[in-house]
């Protein structure tokens, strides 16, 4: 039975949207429930007493009042991770190898995007643009970053991975580590040769920093203002758009079909007349472009970027991809959202719940703990199918 174009279109647009909504709601609900349960269980304990002594508010009220903001921040971070994770998952799906240098592709996207914005600022364009114009320039910079990242990824595959495609498994991985280190210093070299400094700060323009206030919650004399920055809304919107777009591309177009068939069986795919090298390049292009876009989103959210910025987001996104089931696009989205939320929850509540012994500084290694747990107990991830162990 042949579906009409419109039906496919609608299905492939609304299905991922629905999935994302379900993932966010489910993760948010589960994590909130766990936190509240903990707060109830710890009522009257030393932790509770310490908090009352310090902030004159009990644990349950504190947790409840902070939850909405933490959820919002978690969702934003989760979408950034999800976007990067797609790059890992797509390459893994097609080549079965961890593209260790994806974190630098991400950094390149951020740097090119920010450099374009700096150039625009220098030309005096940004200062005059308000409202819609600012968004247009941002999108323009993002497209530049995406192009740079995508092309770098393709080049990288051609130079460092393609000659090693039939080598033992560790060989391309080591090569990828080499590419990653090489690119880090290359970015640093280029950036410091031009201005003498290797970090960049995204120019402030438009109304991205403004906050949209959603609610105010009274807490122990003061109030907590639940708000979301314009840029966070933008991050979420762009990420959702890309996730849906990618989902459509992979599931409903001819290119997507070719990518899926190469992922399934490279040899048979080539027998069916698919140009495998071209498809692999296309995969790197798409994954790289998504990574580049994520890079600029990240720069927008955290303002300062440096050549080594990709390392931790990269590792976390990889964890997200593994958590969702590597090779699985929906899984990468789920993993990213779950990891982003977990991390924000840990960053916000860990310090209070451990009475200051451990705090936000441990969020960077939280991802590793999760990764180990996932790999031990469910190596195929939440949504991954059981595949044969490839040696």
């Amino acid at each position, binding site marked *: 039975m042949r579906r009409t174009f419109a039906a496919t279109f609608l299905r492939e647009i609304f299905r991922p949207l629905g999935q994302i909504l379900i993932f966010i709601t489910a993760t948010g609900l589960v994590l909130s429930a766990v936190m509240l349960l903990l707060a109830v269980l710890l009522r009257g304990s030393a932790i509770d007493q310490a908090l009352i002594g310090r902030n004159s508010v009990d644990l349950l009220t504190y947790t409840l009042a902070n939850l909405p903001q933490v959820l919002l921040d978690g969702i934003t971070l989760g979408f950034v991770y999800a976007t990067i994770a797609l790059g890992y998952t797509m390459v893994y799906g097609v080549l079965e*190898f*961890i593209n260790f240098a994806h974190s630098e592709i991400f950094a390149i996207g951020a740097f090119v995007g920010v450099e374009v914005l700096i150039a625009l600022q220098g030309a005096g364009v940004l200062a005059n643009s308000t409202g819609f114009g600012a968004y247009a320039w941002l999108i323009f910079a993002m497209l530049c970053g995406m192009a740079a990242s995508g092309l770098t990824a393709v080049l990288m595959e051609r*130079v*460092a991975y393609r*000659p*090693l495609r039939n*080598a*033992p*498994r*560790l*060989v*391309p*991985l*080591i*090569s990828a*580590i*080499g*590419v*990653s*280190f*090489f*690119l*880090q*210093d*290359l970015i*640093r*070299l280029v950036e*410091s*040769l031009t201005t*003498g400094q290797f970090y960049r700060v995204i120019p402030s323009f438009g109304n991205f920093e403004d906050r949209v206030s959603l609610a105010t919650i009274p807490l122990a004399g003061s109030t907590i203002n639940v708000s979301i920055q314009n840029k966070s809304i933008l991050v979420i919107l762009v990420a959702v758009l890309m996730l849906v777009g990618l989902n459509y591309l992979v599931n409903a177009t001819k290119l997507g079909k070719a990518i899926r068939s190469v992922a399934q069986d490279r040899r048979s795919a080539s027998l069916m007349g698919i140009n495998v090298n071209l498809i692999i390049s296309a995969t790197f292009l798409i994954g790289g472009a998504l990574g580049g876009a994520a890079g600029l989103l990240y720069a927008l959210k955290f303002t300062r970027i440096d050549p080594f910025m990709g*390392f931790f987001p990269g*590792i976390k996104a*990889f964890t997200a991809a*593994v958590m969702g089931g590597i090779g699985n696009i929906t899984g990468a989205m789920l993993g990213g959202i779950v990891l982003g939320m977990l991390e924000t929850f840990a960053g916000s509540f860990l310090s209070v719940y451990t009475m*200051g*012994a*451990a705090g936000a*500084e*441990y969020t*960077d*290694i939280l*991802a*590793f*703990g999760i*990764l*180990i747990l996932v*790999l*031990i107990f469910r*190596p195929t991830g939440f949504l991954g199918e059981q595949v044969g*162990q*490839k*040696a």
Partner: protein
Amino acid sequence: MATNTLKRTFSRAKDFLQTEKGGIIAIIFTVAYLLVTGLLVYFFIQSLVAFLLFLASGLLVYYLPMPIKAKVIISLVAALVIIPILGIRNIFYLEVMFQICLFSSLALGLNIVVGFTGLLNLGYVAFYAVGAYTWAFFGSQQMYLLHSIPGSQPATNAFFLPADMFYLFAFVGMAVAAIVGILLGLPVLRVRGDYLAIVTLGFGEVIRVLANNLDKPINLTNGPQGITPIQQPTLPQGLQDALRVVLNPLVGHNVTQGEFYNLFFYLITLLVILVVVGVVVRLDNSKIGRAWTAIREDEVAAVAMGIPAVKMKLAAFAVAASFAGIMGVIFAANRTFVSPESFNFLQSINVLTMVILGGMGSIPGVILGAAAVTVLNLQVLQGLSLSLNELRQSGGVIPIINFAWKDLSSQLDPAKYQRLLFGLILIIMMIYRPAGLIPEKRRKRMPAGSEKPKELDNNNNSAVEANQEAHNDAS
């Protein structure tokens, strides 16, 4: 044609060197080379080229066929007499040699995991950190600071332990690192291949972050400021004076206590490296070593043949970790200071680059890799930076493109771009020479009970080489 003639001449020369007469010539040549380059370094004490030529004598000793006794004697004289004298004349050389030995030991340890067993460990530096922090904690005054904020001064001037406990703690550090290796291995070794790489990378970061943040609730590591001062073992004054009598005229100045410490740490790492090489060679030739190779080649088949894969992998992790542990203790004492930044991911990649460059699984290769990368890092890149700086100040101009050297950005400083270098080495080696500079030799296993498997160790056996060629092609 020309290459063929060259090849024939070369092989004829090789055959000649195999003979007894040739062996004597090889010995004479090596000794002469060693003396000449040694004198060159002695008189041109700042010359990088002279020092590199001198270091190349190690290759001669390794490659030229001569009786094993001669090799041992020449190496010992070079290591125990020539290098100390040259090194005290220019103390930087002793530091270079110390680091070469240190990293050789680390690389040999990593080689057990990566080269022999085929498990890519990207967090190897964590074990090094564990060893270093073991001595840093017990060999400093940190014990008195457990409940004070980082950076505070201890109330007492006394150290917690006497300085000579260092020798005991070299072994304690080894044991602690080995235990950590096993503890990490237990959950992690179920994971295979590239996943294992990421998980071990994570472990390395976990150790670093812990070292950074364990200044609260109890101040164990003093946080990002690191622990200092850490004690060095005592050197008896009488021994120093006795050595001065011999060394002062040879090096041309009064040897200071600091220089004696440099010499001491060089000698102690040398001792460790000798033991490590011995252990690794014996392990490689043992049942355990064969099990490791089997796991690397095909884990499923190895398990099917009754090899306890998990146990063997744990053994590999533990042995590798213990090498790093003892070097960590020595490192902490040598620097009298440890901080989390000494144990970042770059260090792990540094050691990995050595293993890859030299040749995974090849013991002489790994040592060569360690020496090459260390010298590149400490001397060649620094030397390039220095000469670029001189060019900038000279006011010269590049002729054809008419570019003034002084306009060259001061950011173009090769010494700072280690990552670029390591990255390039890794990529190029993987594409063009995945087996490394000195590939691992595949020995022919003699059937049980037959005589003398020893002569097969002879590195000029053509059958072995053919075998190895085949291996290279296959990989």
